């Protein structure tokens, strides 16, 4: 059944929140706050009792696919299982009920957690220090690019051309160029070569005195580990540039290949992907970045330092780029990542990557007959296939995706990376069973049979979801972005 908007529920005068009377001795609001600052009437929020609020959001929740309810092979998103006990840790008053400005002696446990997590992430990255502040992967990218800028500024020699260019492969996540733009850089795009790696020839021609750095995901968004990574790093470094590692795909390399050892100077991790913190339907994430020694002085403030047995937040770092976020970052997300690393240990993390890669290769092997495989190599934790052959039946990747919903599966990422036609980007993660992967293959095979028999069936899929295929064009053409109270704009 459909669920009305919260504004379409409730009725004037209902309340889900009540208060004890304040008692005498507390003057009325207007004694202290002059009337000119006050609004004429409260905002036009809905009025409901607690049973109505709870039922509404419980029902809404059921209209949502999630890792807890099904297979979610969304490429590049690492939708792995999120341990239940982590939610309990985060809710401990000692973590959830502490204020960012409490005196340091009252938050030693929190600071210790941040200090240790920083070190563990550095160990995974193969780098020397990290900042936990960035709120998400893209925020980490932006911060990393600021570090690159600060570095070059500090090392600039008068008369040199400005280092204002960032090299980014054509298979990169959209956030890479967007972050470069936000940080005031020009972007030069490097194409992929025939094996799905970066085209070395083009790279050689592209690096130079204006190269500030290169952003790379490795394994890349094709799920392929760039075999030339050492050569790439050498080329960029020789040109005076720095290398930024987009950690979105780090689930493939834990304990197996460290970005620092590949030659990267900066790494961001998506704690909400690699380190198993839940994605919250769009966030919060967390995008800490680890850096090599030369970049340490520029890290944002504050940073946690340890002196003897005491932890403190240090703001006084003269070369720092400054602050990229108020307070200290997404602490609640850090708690979960910290617990995850501790639960897994070094062997566990390596097993994570081995199993993630094994699951992906198994699924790839089983899907060969149904799709075109654009780059035929062992993949890492994810892979991209093309639905180009389905076109002969008039079926596109989007149709396959929508039909998968009817089979109870979340579809893969589609139409990305852009370098593959009709791309399906599939990441099973290590927390899925082979039985689930087999069932997914069976579903795709069944859909393939449907495509051959009756393509039109697929054009109108899904059928068994809370709503049918939605008109996204209409939404963009005639934006309806909010509810409005009857009779206009409410009562401000």
């Amino acid at each position, binding site marked *: 059944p459909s*669920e009305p908007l919260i504004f379409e529920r409730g009725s004037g005068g209902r309340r*889900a929140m009540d208060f004890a009377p*304040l008692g005498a001795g507390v003057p009325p609001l207007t004694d*202290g706050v002059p009337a000119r600052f006050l609004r004429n*009437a409260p905002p036009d929020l*809905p*009025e409901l009792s607690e049973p109505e*609020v*709870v039922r509404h*959001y419980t029902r809404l929740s*059921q*209209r949502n*696919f999630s890792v*807890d309810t099904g297979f979610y092979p969304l490429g590049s998103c690492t*939708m792995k299982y999120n341990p239940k006990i982590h939610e309990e840790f985060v809710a*401990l008053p000692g*973590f959830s*009920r*502490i204020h960012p*400005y*409490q*005196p340091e002696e009252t938050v*030693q*446990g929190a600071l210790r957690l941040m200090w240790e997590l920083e070190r563990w992430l550095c*160990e995974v990255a193969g780098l020397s220090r990290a900042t936990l502040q960035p709120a998400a992967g893209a925020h980490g990218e*932006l911060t990393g690019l600021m570090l690159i800028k600060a570095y070059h500024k500090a090392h600039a020699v008068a008369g040199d051309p400005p280092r204002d260019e960032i090299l980014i492969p054509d298979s990169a996540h959209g*956030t890479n160029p967007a972050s470069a*733009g*936000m940080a*005031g850089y020009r*972007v030069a795009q490097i194409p992929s070569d025939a094996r799905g790696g970066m085209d070395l020839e083009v790279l050689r021609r592209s690096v130079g005195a204006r190269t500030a750095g290169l952003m790379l995901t490795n394994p890349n968004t094709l799920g392929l580990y*760039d*075999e030339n990574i050492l050569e790439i790093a050498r080329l960029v470094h020789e040109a005076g540039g720095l290398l930024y590692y987009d950690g979105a795909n780090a689930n493939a390399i834990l*304990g197996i*290949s*460290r970005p620092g050892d590949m030659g990267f100077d900066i790494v961001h991790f*998506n704690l909400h992907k690699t380190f198993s913190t*839940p994605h*919250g*339907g*769009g*966030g*919060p994430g967390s995008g800490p970045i680890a850096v090599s020694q030369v970049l340490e002085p520029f890290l944002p403030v504050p940073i946690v330092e340890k002196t003897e047995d005491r932890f403190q937040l240090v703001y006084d770092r003269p070369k720092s780029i*400054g602050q990229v976020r*108020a*307070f200290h970052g*997404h602490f*609640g997300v850090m708690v979960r990542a910290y617990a995850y690393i*501790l*639960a897994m240990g070094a*062997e566990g993390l390596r097993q994570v990557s081995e199993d993630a890669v094994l699951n992906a290769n198994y699924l790839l092997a089983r899907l060969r007959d149904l799709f075109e495989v654009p780059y035929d190599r062992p993949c890492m934790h994810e892979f991209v296939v093309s639905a180009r052959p389905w076109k002969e039946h008039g079926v596109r990747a989007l149709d396959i995706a929508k039909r998968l919903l009817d089979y109870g599966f*979340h*579809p893969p990422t589609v139409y990305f990376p852009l370098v593959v036609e009709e791309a399906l980007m599939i990441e099973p993660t290590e927390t899925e069973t*082979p039985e689930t992967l087999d069932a997914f293959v069976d579903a795709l095979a069944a859909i393939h049979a449907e495509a051959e028999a009756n393509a039109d069936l697929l054009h109108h899929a*899904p059928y068994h979801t809370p709503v049918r295929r*939605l008109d996204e064009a209409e939404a*963009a053409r005639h934006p*309806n*972005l909010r509810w409005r109270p009857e009779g206009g704009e*409410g009562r401000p």
Partner: protein
Amino acid sequence: MRYLPLTGADRRRMLDRIGVSRVEELFEAIPPEARRSQPLDLPGPLAEPELSAHMRRLAAENRHADELISFLGAGAYDRVVPAAVRHAVARSEFYTAYTPYQPEVSQGVLQAIYEFQSMVCLLTGMDVANASMYDASTALAEAAAMSCGATGRGRVLVAETVHPEYRRVAATYLAHQDRELVTVPMKDGRLDRHRLEGLLADDAAALLVQQPNFFGILEETDGLADLVHARGALLVVAADPVSLGVLRPPAQYGADVAVGDVQPLGNSLSFGGPYAGYFAVREALVRRMPGRITGATHDEEGRRGFVLTLQTREQHIRRERATSNICTNNALNALAATVYLATAGPEGLAEVAGRSARLAHAAQARLCGLPGVRLAWPQPFFFEFTLKLPRPAGPVVHALLQDGLLAGLSLGRFQAAWDRLLLVSVTEARTLEDIERLVESLRRILAAA
């Protein structure tokens, strides 16, 4: 390992199917120099009971707001969180979902975000809001950058009375875009209108103000927008969302952009995050807005449904020309805010705001009855206020901690000249008894000096 389903038998069968004999073969693309042979130097693995014991020990090394009576605010508030909010965000269909890229199976998150956007508009009076930012500070920084883009100018003014950390973040963002953030000094704890006029040249993209401001004081907004708009700049207001239960909405005094933090709406303190920023604009700016936006549409059968929309602004499509790089946002915190506002309703939110302000005024009156204690600036304030103490505030705060009190924020951390200033925040979670304890402890400590 409890989170990893594959067994040895599974692995062997799968390797067979792939056609390799050892999992290492799958990693052969990695050059040996980039391959790790020895194990990482990490603690663990821990079984669940040991892990749990460790995490509880760590949490117990912190003293929290159930143990301490807190008057700390300055952007993060100890407010009452209704149980209904915790129930909603604990629904794992919400918290273990990704960004709603497949709307047909993501109506829960999408509709909740649409409701969030609507509620933000109702609070602020603005036309459109997005699906959340990381927090207030980055929302303000994005607003500054957006203003530059919209006006084609590179200079942004910010009132000195804006939260110092928000100002720092905006400064960092702008500096890397070769734009400039200029501080408009304050006078008596408020934006100095006179100095503003002097700094508002024709190259200013925007003025950033905060209401109530960092010191808890209510900025005079009459005529402010006219002044700013007359020079072709935008007015950006950072407003505490709870205060908007009773305070005038920014749109009404001419704001072009309203931003803020929804932490006070049902989100826990969590040592500073995750919270979520809100970001709302006038209609004309909607296609310049950063971040995700949800819109209503219809399905094949004509039923209402919700989708992510206006994505041509975003990095997936526009790449380096996107309005912002923000991708993952703070949707779950926005959900908490949505459920909070549904629980509070208009009267509830007004009462939360009103109680906080009333208690704050009661606290201020009592505290200023102590010898040598006064308001730093005698201005109308809301639920936070800045005291000037007869001696440095830092040691006083530490002394009060011994009595189980978090007395407020000593402002010396931001500026040496502010070292006797104490920013005190009073929320509806405090009682008159809490206030009496603070007053009596402070009295004793000041007398002992």
